[in-house]
Structures are given as structure tokens and as C-alpha cells.
């Protein structure tokens, strides 16, 4: 039977008290997740016992490293159900992947008067890179608006789609509100106009199964550190033909066929897109994180985080002076709320005294906050190791804060 307490024991950070002597109640998983021992040990072993570079050596340990590195590509391929291993490219994170696709896929294909569509709930990472290139090229950035509930206005999307649209980039889940988007519907609509679709799955992969073939998206990206893996590593899935037709994501060693001062020719993907020495330890640690997820299984993970989210919503809604933002039935394990009379930052400082970690602010989604007329919210977000006891501790602390501050 699934037991979050035994899961928690696999995460060393929870074995100790916070500097103020509290148990750590970590509720900022949408920002970054804690790491299980299996991931930490894998990284340590890599550096201590088999460290080498990848891709161009015929000596141990580099041969071993290259094998292990490429095995992770297969693991990620299976995790996303991608059709080919060469559709998986390692980047240094979601932000990095988006910027690179913006530079190498969008820029050369975008002309004055063209259109790029995003949504009103995007994280700045899935907004500014596209925005800047639209500005540079004289193209238009259009927005799928949200309804008052926080959900996307799917009908509005349909009216935005034309033959001028060169890309549609949208998040799977709002990092600020936990709203889930109906990606199948969005992608189907976009495909009617042959619009390439880019999915920001930074908030999706930790909690729910992804199938890029069923989704039929052209690109999908996520970060290792949000799925129990190391920092500094991310994944770009790209359909084979997209990755082949694109210029390299960046230029350097390991990606070339022939180089002269005048010109360079390049290998095929994925090599082509991974210039320079990659974050080898990051990729290998990411492999351990994927194993960790697979061992528990998405069914258990989704069920658990859903249960915790439901429990937290219930408790929050029962409190006076708390307003949960976004009105949807089914949400990802992310809840934003405001406490009447108490600024989210003050709340966060108070909760920290109790060992409780929450996020306060605009969550890198200023246009969304603006639309909702909010300056800042408090956000809690859950992972596989969170328990009902965590929520209980939160609710007690919220009440104490309320009594003291408001």
C-alpha cells in the first residue's frame, strides 16, 4: 500500500529539524522539489566512482559515462511515450529549452505580420522569449484569455487561429493557480491550421502521465528539478522532423560534421542540439528521478497528490477570510489563495517560523495576476511526500497568523 510517510523517509532533508527546531513542511513544490536519496546517491556515485565526459572517448570511465548518459535518453523517451529516442534533447532547464526553441525554431520562421499565440496564464518563461522575437520581427503576440474561473477561454482560441499563426505555446498547468488546460482540445484546434504547438510541461511531468504521441504536440519541455531530479537539467521533446529541420539549439563542440572558418555542417539530432559538455551529472541524476517516479507509478502519484489537494482545498475553504483563487473542479496540486488583511509575504515569513514553506508573490505570471486584479497571492503546492499532517500544520499556522496579523 502507498504510504506517504515511508515515501518521506526516502528524502533525507526531512530527517532533520529546521534551524528553528521545527519539522520541515515543504509546500513549495511548484517552485522546486526535494530530492530522494536514490537521486542524491546516483550523483555522488557518478562523481566518486565513474566520472568521465560523454561522446568522444574510448577509455573508461568516459565510455561508461556515455552509455549511462544515453540510457537516460531512452528513459525519458519512455516516460513521455515519444516515438524515437532522438526526439529527446537535454537542455539546462525549461527556461533554457524555451529560449532555444524561440531562437532556433521560431526566429528564422517568423516574419512581420505573423502571429504567435500564447495564453494569459503563462509563466514569464513561456511568454517573454516569444514576445521578444515577435517584437524583433514585427510579428504579433496574441493571447488566449482566461475566464473569471481561471480557465482558458477555448472559444476565444478558435477565433485567434489563422494561417498567419506560426506557433502556439501554452502551459499544461498554470504554475500560479494550478489550473489544468485541455491540451488535446487546444492542439486539435491548432492542427486545423497546421500550427506547430509548444507545450510548457514544467508543472505537469511530476504529477501526471504524459503521452506526446497522443497529444500530437510538436515540442514539450520540462525541468529536472521539479520532478525530484537535479538542478541544471531539462528536457526538450521535439518531433523528429522538427528537430531535424531546425538549426542547432546552440553551437560548439560535439555537434559538427565539418568545420572551416567559413562554414560548419552538423550531425543529426539529438547530437546536433547538444553542443558542448552537457550537465552530465544532471542527466544521470535525472535518470534516477525518472526511475523513482516509475517505481511509485503515476497512478499512485496522481491519486495521492489529488487527495492532498482536495483535503487542503476543503480545509482552506472552511476558513474565514481565505479566498482560493480560480474556480475549477479538477486542479493540479497547486493552490493559490489570499488571506484578507494579510500580505502573502508576511504570511510566508510567519509560516517559516513554523517550518512551513510557501511561496508568496506574483509567481512569475504578472499578466495573469493583472488580469485577476491581484498583487500577490500565497501559493501552496504538493509533491508525493506531502501528508495530511502537513496540511493540518498549515491550517493551524494560518489561523495563528490570522489572529496575530489581521
Amino acid at each position, binding site marked *: 500500500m502507498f504510504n506517504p510517510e515511508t515515501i518521506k523517509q526516502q528524502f533525507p532533508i526531512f530527517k532533520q529539524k529546521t534551524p*528553528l527546531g521545527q519539522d520541515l513542511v515543504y509546500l513549495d513544490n511548484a517552485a522546486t522539489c526535494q530530492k530522494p536519496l536514490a537521486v542524491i546517491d546516483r550523483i555522488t556515485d557518478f562523481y566518486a566512482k565513474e566520472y568521465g565526459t560523454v561522446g568522444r572517448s574510448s577509455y573508461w570511465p568516459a565510455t561508461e559515462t556515455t552509455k549511462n548518459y544515453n540510457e537516460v535518453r531512452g528513459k525519458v523517451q519512455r516516460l513521455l511515450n515519444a516515438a524515437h529516442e532522438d526526439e529527446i534533447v537535454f537542455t539546462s532547464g525549461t527556461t533554457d529549452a524555451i529560449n532555444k526553441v524561440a531562437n532556433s525554431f521560431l526566429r528564422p520562421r517568423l516574419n512581420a505580420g505573423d502571429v504567435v499565440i500564447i495564453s494569459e496564464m503563462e509563466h514569464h518563461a513561456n511568454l517573454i522569449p516569444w514576445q521578444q522575437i515577435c517584437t524583433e520581427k514585427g510579428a504579433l503576440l496574441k493571447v488566449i484569455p482566461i475566464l473569471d474561473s481561471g480557465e482558458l477561454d477555448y472559444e476565444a482560441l478558435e477565433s485567434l487561429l489563422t494561417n498567419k499563426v506560426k506557433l502556439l505555446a501554452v502551459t499544461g498547468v498554470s504554475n500560479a493557480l494550478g489550473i489544468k488546460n485541455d491540451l488535446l482540445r487546444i492542439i486539435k484546434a491548432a492542427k486545423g491550421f497546421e500550427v506547430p504547438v509548444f507545450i510548457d510541461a514544467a508543472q505537469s511531468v511530476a504529477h501526471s502521465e504524459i503521452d506526446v504521441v497522443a497529444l500530437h504536440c510538436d515540442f514539450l519541455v520540462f525541468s529536472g528539478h521539479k520532478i525530484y531530479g537535479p538542478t541544471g537539467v531539462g528536457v526538450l521533446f521535439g518531433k523528429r522532423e522538427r528537430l531535424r529541420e531546425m538549426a542547432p539549439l546552440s553551437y560548439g563542440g560535439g555537434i559538427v560534421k565539418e568545420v572551416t572558418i567559413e562554414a560548419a555542417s552538423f550531425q543529426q539530432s539529438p547530437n546536433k542540439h547538444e553542443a558542448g559538455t552537457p550537465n552530465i551529472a544532471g542527466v544521470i541524476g535525472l535518470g534516477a528521478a525518472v526511475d523513482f517516479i516509475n517505481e511509485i507509478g503515476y497512478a499512485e502519484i496522481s491519486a495521492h497528490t489529488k487527495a492532498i489537494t482536495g483535503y487542503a482545498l476543503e480545509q482552506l475553504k472552511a476558513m474565514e477570510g481565505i479566498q482560493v483563487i480560480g474556480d475549477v473542479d479538477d486542479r493540479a496540486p497547486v493552490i493559490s489563495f489570499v488571506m484578507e488583511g*494579510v*500580505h*502573502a*509575504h*508576511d504570511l510566508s*515569513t*510567519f509560516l517559516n*517560523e513554523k517550518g512551513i514553506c510557501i511561496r*508568496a*508573490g*506574483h509567481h512569475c505570471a504578472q499578466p495573469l*495576476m493583472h488580469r485577476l486584479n491581484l*498583487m*500577490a497571492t500565497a501559493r501552496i503546492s504538493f509533491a508525493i511526500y506531502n501528508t495530511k499532517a502537513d496540511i493540518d500544520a498549515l491550517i493551524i499556522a494560518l489561523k*495563528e497568523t490570522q489572529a*496575530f*496579523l489581521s
Partner: protein
Amino acid sequence: MNDRIKALYQSHILVNAKDTSHQGKLEDATHVLEAYNPMCGDQYTVSLKIVDDVIEKATFDGFGCAISKASTAVLTKQIEGKTLVEIKPFIELFHELVNELSDQSPESLTSDEDLLAFAAAREFPERKVCATLSWEELLLSLRGSMMK
């Protein structure tokens, strides 16, 4: 609530955060400053009426956490009547008060209780930026055009 956090939010700060006596815009402002912390979204507009290098009136408008609001309220209250020359050391004193690396005790710096209250920020270095937001902006303006 433990003592650490009580000290930070002690009544002086909570009272000042709710004090509306210096809130609002000045019709006859000579200078308007925008204090903004992009990390958390706190944002204040400080209006000043400066006549002959003396700050005759100061008010503020905006939103943010209790610490930044209280510190802006205290700032606007306490600079009224000061000359531009007096303000710089006053802001520096405030910075010293909240500086966790300072070797001077808060009590050796001031006996003003509204100011002293912010010394608790020494325990919360990540909130120092809240305490100094508007003060910092005023200092920048002094260094810039305002002194001329």
C-alpha cells in the same frame, strides 16, 4: 507565535502599517518617487513637497507587505521638516539599524521606538529589502537629481 517573529511584527510595525495619516497623494508635490520591488511586487508612490531644500510634506500610496508599508509610513512621517542635507545620514542610520552585519547595537543608534522596531529585521535578512524599499529609493533620488 515565538519571540523572534513577535519582535519583527511588534505592535509598532503593525500599528504603522495601518496608520493612514500619511497615505495619499499630494496635490502640490514637487517630487514623486516610485519604490518598486520586482521580486515581490511591492510598490509605493511617495509624494514630496520640497521647498527651499526642506521637506514640508511627505505622503505615500501603494501596496505591499506589513514591513514595507510600515517602513514607508514611518519614512514619510519622520522626514517631514528635515532638510535635504539632514536626510542622507538619517537614511544611513536606518540602513544600519536593519543591517544584520552591523556591529552597532540598535539602541546605540537611536531611541526612537518607531525606528527601533525595524531592528528586528536583522533576524530576517531576506525581509531587509522590505524594510528599506522606500528609503533606498529616496536615497537614490537624493544621489540623483533631487540634490541639485
